[in-house]
């Protein structure tokens, strides 16, 4: 993992300097969180959950 973390940190630092673009948007980060929360809600309720309808 340390090699991958170094890749990531190096990329961020280069992004700070304007030399690289970050490969994931905030919207995509939010969308991944939304699915994860939907899985958590589904596990708690014991039924399917439509992503975007989560109450968590």
């Amino acid at each position, binding site marked *: 993992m340390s090699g991958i973390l170094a890749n990531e940190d190096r990329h961020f630092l280069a992004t700070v300097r304007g030399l690289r673009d970050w490969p994931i948007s905030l919207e995509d980060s939010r969308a991944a969180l939304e*699915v994860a929360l939907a899985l958590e809600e589904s596990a708690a309720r014991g039924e399917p959950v439509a992503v975007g309808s989560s109450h968590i």
Partner: protein
Amino acid sequence: MEPVRCAVIGVGMMGASHVGVLNGLTSANLIGCCDVDSKSRSRVPEGVRFYENLEDLVARPELEAVFVCTPQDVHLPVINRCLQAGVAVFCEKPLAHDLASADRIIAAAAQSDSLLVVGHTMRFDPNYLEIVAAVAAGEIGEPVYLTARRNVPAFEGHMLARRTNLPVEVGIHDIDILRWIGGDITRVYAEPARTASLGEGAVDAVIGTLRFASGAVGIVEFNWVMKSETGLAGDYRLSVFGTEGAAYLEMRDLRRRYSRKRGCGCRGPADKQTSTERCRGSSPMRTATSSLR
């Protein structure tokens, strides 16, 4: 490139990992670490200033960027303060612990001139990137069935099960990759296992089905109860079956097996012959077994 003057906020497990990396990068000048727990000072290299108070850190005029590695439920106030201070922010996944906080963070970033990114580490793992690229290049056709597995050692479960949950803390790595490959996910159905090994009511494992907007389906499986006696540092898998082939990655016990197989284009068995006998044209594009160092 001039080294970026940076700091790590939250020097727990992930924060300490970033500290170790940054302290060795020529593109970083680690000028501080901050943690409300004074015992975290022991994880800070000599010569790097330690702060218990965030205000003292962000008051440093030379600070350019921070790595936010705190518990998720304080990402909002920490990131807000850093954006106000005009420093670039790297936020360890997940963006927040709930969507309301995530939305407030995104709104704050939109109002700020400072950079905010979220660290989804698998997007920097060449093993995963190779599969993403193969799918993007059309090598396996349209994704039909996608699966991901991420099983991690029990010490992570013991450390985290009381303050976060398995899909958000562990599964989000694979959820991001599956979305990157397969597109939006519209419906999920999860089943948890609760054996009390992590404490009464705590979830040990989750399996889930996914429905993609494209019509594809998927399965995810996560657990954080892998005993150290197994000798496994991690057990990960990604598979993508498409209309023209398949790609899969398996990483267990630091050994990687990676294959891509392109279909031969035939339509399957026409008679009693098996599809293997018929498909003599199928070609393994790559098979590699190697030890990761």
